[in-house]
């Protein structure tokens, strides 16, 4: 197709995907004096239009007609639970909700903004040190990231300042300074803003978690607790807990987004060229496949064009990055039979279950109030914060109340306690009681990587451009189910301390396969992971392709296994980390940054 394609004037850098990672990379590359074209297949979007109150807070359009999400009619994935099955298309939005359009999912995410636990970055080494190599279950591809927390710390700090993150620190430069998460690593500076207020359910959870002997803390939230101006000069307003967060552009300009925090500045830069409605078909490589020469895409008129560039940075959503590598022949595709090859390897998800606690009918939990990133968590069973030895599983879960706002249609669908019919008068009574008097507690767990869980190209189904869909082979594994069940029992301890009228502990069940019909989370990861060994990672520790040195791939695709935390904070830090090494080393002397 590239032979016939119209060739455009070459630029220094082409960036594929206009979300957080793309906007950060574009900002950094233009600061370095490079010309940048950012290609986004969805429409152009801004908070002023998509977030305009009150039309924007329409639950039906936002959460049930997926106004700001990926257009599955053009492109989706196929899914199966194991490699003996025929994978079938993910035809309707359900289990995960990828974004589309300028700002990506960053326009309408919730805002939970974490730094990864240091132990998670060297998970394989840490588990072997503590429990011995025999502790790692057969078939689990446990790996290290190849980068340390100390190396990433300046970039976590930078991302928090750009995002205007609200939080309570625990330790700064080795000194205890606040009531933050006692398990969190030392920081170089405060959060740019103080923590958000606790909503009532989070306040109750904090008290009960303390009584149960755990260590609650305020979730770090990229929802501004006060008016804020970030280092780029972008302005945020204070979060008013409107309750319309996940799925919505923030009409208060309180939730960090590329559209509010980076793009207003970037759009004015003479070296920056944003092209919306442009779907990238492939990265073009030179004759020996060692160097990218640009990308080929369809423009808004459906014409196929080639944009030559010195560097290509893939910043699409996790699985789109992996698919584009497979379609372009960048890196060796993963072979699950031999456990060899790297593109598609270590595909992971997030292991979340939500339990419900009913309080006395005199207590109104006001679930319509919420801030997407706000809430209270405890990390006593996350990462390596507890002794896994007697428990016999790898991984963990933070536990939290993260009330982003429960709206009316969602409440109706959630219904009443277990055993309540789905309709009729009994449903009505149970649903109203649940909405008014309950609260939700999540175990937001890690998901380990396994040899037979991976991504490749589907042999049957194609997208609107005639290219094969990506195929997901995924199921829950016993290790991860046991982890979930252990941590959810701790939620039971908290509910007891809360004086619950009724508790429904939701746990993963052994033998129950991954169900694509129920929303779980959009925190997909892995598939083109970073690391120190080209035999087990597609990217080096600078997120540079081992095989094609002028291709960098930024996103949650780089996570070798899942973590208990939400991915965006880590993705943003990795973007700044990669950009730093591109600016300080690569641009002066293009070539592999790791040998």
């Amino acid at each position, binding site marked *: 197709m590239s032979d016939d394609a119209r060739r455009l004037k070459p630029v220094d850098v082409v960036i594929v995907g206009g979300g957080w990672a793309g906007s950060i990379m574009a900002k950094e590359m233009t600061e370095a004096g490079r010309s940048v074209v950012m290609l986004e297949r969805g429409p152009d979007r801004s908070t002023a239009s998509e977030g305009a*109150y*009150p*039309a924007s*807070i*329409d*639950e*039906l359009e936002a959460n*049930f*007609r*997926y106004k700001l999400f990926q*257009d*599955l*009619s053009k*492109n989706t994935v196929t899914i199966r*639970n194991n490699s003996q*099955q*025929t994978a*079938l*298309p993910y*035809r*309707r*939005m*359900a289990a995960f909700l990828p974004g589309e359009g300028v700002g990506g999912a960053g326009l309408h995410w919730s805002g939970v903004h974490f730094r990864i636990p240091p132990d998670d970055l060297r998970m394989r080494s840490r588990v072997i040190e503590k429990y011995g190599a025999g502790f790692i279950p057969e078939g689990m591809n446990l790996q290290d990231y190849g980068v340390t927390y100390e190396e990433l710390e300046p970039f976590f700090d930078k991302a928090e300042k750009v995002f205007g993150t609200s939080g309570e620190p625990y330790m700064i430069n080795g000194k205890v300074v606040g009531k933050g998460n006692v398990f969190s690593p030392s920081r170089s500076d405060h959060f740019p803003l103080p923590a958000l*207020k*606790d*909503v*009532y359910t989070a*306040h109750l959870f904090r008290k009960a978690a303390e009584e149960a002997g755990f260590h609650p803390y305020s979730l770090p939230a990229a929802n501004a607790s006060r008016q804020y101006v970030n280092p780029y000069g972008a302005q945020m307003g*204070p979060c*008013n*807990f*409107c*309750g319309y967060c996940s799925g919505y552009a923030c*009409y208060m300009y309180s939730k960090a987004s590329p559209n509010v925090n980076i793009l207003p500045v970037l759009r004015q830069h003479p070296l920056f060229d944003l092209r919306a409605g442009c779907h990238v078909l492939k990265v073009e490589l030179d004759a020996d496949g060692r160097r990218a020469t640009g990308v080929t895409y369809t423009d808004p008129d459906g014409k196929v064009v080639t944009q030559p560039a010195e560097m290509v940075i893939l910043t699409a959503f996790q699985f789109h990055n992996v698919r584009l590598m497979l379609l372009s022949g960048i890196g060796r595709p993963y072979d699950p039979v031999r456990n060899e090859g790297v593109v598609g390897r270590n595909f992971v998800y997030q292991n979340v279950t939500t339990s419900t606690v009913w309080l006395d009918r005199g*207590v*109104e939990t*006001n679930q*319509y*109030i919420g801030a997407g990133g706000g809430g209270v968590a405890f990390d006593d069973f996350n990462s390596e914060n507890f002794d896994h030895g007697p428990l016999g599983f790898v991984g963990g879960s933070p536990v939290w109340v993260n009330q982003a706002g429960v709206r*009316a*249609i969602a*409440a*109706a669908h959630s219904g009443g306690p277990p055993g309540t019919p*789905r*309709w*009729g*008068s009994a449903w*009505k*009574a149970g*649903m*109203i009681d649940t*909405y*008014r008097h309950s609260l939700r507690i999540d175990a937001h767990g890690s998901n380990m990587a396994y040899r037979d869980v991976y991504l490749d190209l589907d042999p*049957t*189904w194609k997208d609107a451009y005639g290219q094969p869909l990506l195929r997901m082979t995924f199921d829950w594994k016993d290790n991860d189910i046991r982890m979930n069940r252990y941590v959810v029992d701790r939620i039971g301890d908290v509910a007891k301390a809360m004086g619950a009228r009724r508790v429904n502990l939701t746990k993963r069940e052994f033998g129950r*396969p*991954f*169900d*694509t*019909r129920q929303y779980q989370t959009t925190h997909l990861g892995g598939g083109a992971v970073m690391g120190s060994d080209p035999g087990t990672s597609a990217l080096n520790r600078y997120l540079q392709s081992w095989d094609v040195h002028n291709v960098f791939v930024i996103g949650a695709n780089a996570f070798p296994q899942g973590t208990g935390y939400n991915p965006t904070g880590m993705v943003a830090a990795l973007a700044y980390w990669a950009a730093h090494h591109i600016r300080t080393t690569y641009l002066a002397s293009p070539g592999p940054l790791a040998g």
Partner: protein
Amino acid sequence: MGIGGLRFISSRRQFMRGLAGIAACGTSLASHPARSRPPAPYVPRFFTSAEWAFLIAACDRLIPADENGPGARALDVPRFIDMQMDTPYAFGAQWYMHAPFVQGPDNLGYQLPYAPRDLYRRGIAGMNAHAATRHGRPFADLAPALQDDLLRGAENNRLVFGDIPSSVFFDQLLANVMEGAFSDPVHGGNTGLGGWTMLGFPGARADFMDWVDRYGAHYPLGSVSISGETA
């Protein structure tokens, strides 16, 4: 979409303004029989008269009027569903609808070649066929207990409608009924904000800066819609 619906909302707002003095008392106005001037009956654009009769009857069994608040008919849920049938969603425009359509295990999700409009057309025909076979009358003419039996049969996939599992039709209907009762009235349902009022959902108020730490207190303001209608 929605010209008729918007005109209706506008007349409701005038009505509500007249009732402003008692609007904040927390009673469900939507279940109140009084209306200054009843709107002209809605004429469905997608559903045939036989389908419309089914829809009204089925919606009111899924959300019946009771002591907790209005039923789906009073909330104009059938009108909402008919209006939705004119949106891209109903044509499957947001779904991946490329062949081949291969059936697999339930947990791998929806794999039929039918958009919501097809599901309604075929599903309602299937429900009425079962009603006629078992009871000699269309669904809408049956006693509520018999209607509930048929709905439960569909819900539990015990009825056969050609190549559409009856539970697929039921789930489509139930999802749209919930949407109609609890979405913003701009879409044609939730009339008088009756769905939100019975739930205790303030709608588009969307500013709790001063209320977030009033722990345990009852929020005193009634619901408000995107168009400014209050309850």
